[in-house]
């Protein structure tokens, strides 16, 4: 077991990265289609954008000649009304998504790809609480 005490325990996710070959094309998709808004980045790199979701967690879009992120790396984003979110993406935005599937804990999820070929999961909250 880890000998770390509470002050050196990893407690939350600050951000996840998504690699993309065209950061401006990716930003349009992430902002306009997914509705995740850009915020001021706190680094000097020209090859990345910072976005934030209401929980405070960030998404960093990183331009990279070898993007997208592979092989099937993804983050899963929580939404309150998953049917409406899927309908919005399919009908208002013309995005192809998988059907909604259900996990053992009752959590429901579907997947789509961004313009860069990155996999994105949209899901409801998990059916269990905090177990750790």
């Amino acid at each position, binding site marked *: 077991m880890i*000998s770390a005490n509470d002050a050196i325990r990893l407690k*939350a996710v600050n951000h996840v990265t998504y*690699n993309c070959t065209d950061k401006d094309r990716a930003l349009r998709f992430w902002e306009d289609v997914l*509705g995740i808004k850009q915020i001021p980045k706190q680094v000097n790199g020209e090859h990345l954008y910072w976005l934030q*979701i209401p929980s405070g967690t960030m998404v960093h879009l990183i331009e990279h000649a*070898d993007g997208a992120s592979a092989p099937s790396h993804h983050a899963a984003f929580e939404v309150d009304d998953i049917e409406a979110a899927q309908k919005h993406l399919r009908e208002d935005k013309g995005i192809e998504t998988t059907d909604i599937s259900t996990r053992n804990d009752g959590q429901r999820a579907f997947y789509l790809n961004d313009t860069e070929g990155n996999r994105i999961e949209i899901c409801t909250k*998990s059916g269990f609480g905090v177990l750790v």
Partner: protein
Amino acid sequence: MTSTNGATRLTGVNHVTYNVKDKDKALLFWEDVLGIKQIPSQVQSDRIIWLQLPDGTMVHLVQNEAGPSVPNHHAAFEVEDIAGYREHIVSNDVEASEITTRKDGQQEFKFYDPEGNQIEICTKSGFGILV
């Protein structure tokens, strides 16, 4: 601008995945070195291991012959005592970058798991919720 209303707005991250070639070897590192604990998986697949952080967010280790996740895909995990955590990581014979500071005062360092996945450890961001 997006037309998503409150109920279809993406509100949080539920989990992030890390691709690994050997899920059991990866689990040893993620549990014993990183201190992120395993929880029961809620899917039938034998190639996935689920872990959880104290805020409820999960990490899913996904066995995949093409793993690790590339080119530099990573998640950043928050910790209170970043110097203490780096000391802990280095004491486990893991090579880690030096701690650097971003414009908002956030400190961070990075290293790789045995599968070649990049992991970032950081303090909380210096700004609040901006969206």
